């Protein structure tokens, strides 16, 4: 009973899933530009492709509003929404991301060795959520 839904969910990661790179839809990933609309458009295209899909975020820092993967019939505040609920999709970065921390604060998710190891790899993608 438990294996069935997990298998279906993991099917989105199979090799035959179509990949939609958010940068092909105008996302900058520079940590400055608001990439909400680009990611929404890529997600919409992936979601409407009719099969398993992968929404791929290459290395970078993506600034997004808090609703890029939300679908609803209501649209309060004019925020962008998807045409339909997300289904059969993998939203993936490039590698296990390192802990993001500000200059004066330690976030404490990982020890120093692990942090250094991940920093050397330097292939993480981060999503920074901006709220209004």
């Amino acid at each position, binding site marked *: 009973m438990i294996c069935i839904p997990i298998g279906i969910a993991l099917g989105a990661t199979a090799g035959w899933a179509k990949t939609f790179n958010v940068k092909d839809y105008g996302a900058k990933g520079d940590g400055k530009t608001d990439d909400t609309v680009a990611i929404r458009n890529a997600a919409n295209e992936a979601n409407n492709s009719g099969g398993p899909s992968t929404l791929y975020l290459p290395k970078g820092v993506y600034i997004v509003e808090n609703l890029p993967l939300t679908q609803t019939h209501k649209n309060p505040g004019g925020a962008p929404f998807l045409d339909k609920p997300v289904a059969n999709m993998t939203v993936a970065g490039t590698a296990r991301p390192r*802990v993001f921390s500000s200059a004066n604060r330690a976030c404490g998710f990982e020890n120093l060795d692990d942090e250094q190891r991940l920093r050397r790899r330097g292939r993480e993608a981060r999503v920074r959520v901006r709220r209004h």
Partner: protein
Amino acid sequence: MNNASDVVVEKLGFEFDAIDRFGGVAIYGSKRVIVRHCRFVDSAPTPLQSFDRMGLMGMAARTM
């Protein structure tokens, strides 16, 4: 994300830069959602509010 199904979120870090209330990544009414190899961080100071603040929140989800 709401009303989603069969979704995997992986290999991403989320920096919320101040969650004012509830969740940074919120998953509502969804089923068969897997979140793996992700980091959830709010580097902003904790505001003086009484609301719960969470990096990842699932609500009315059937399978996560």
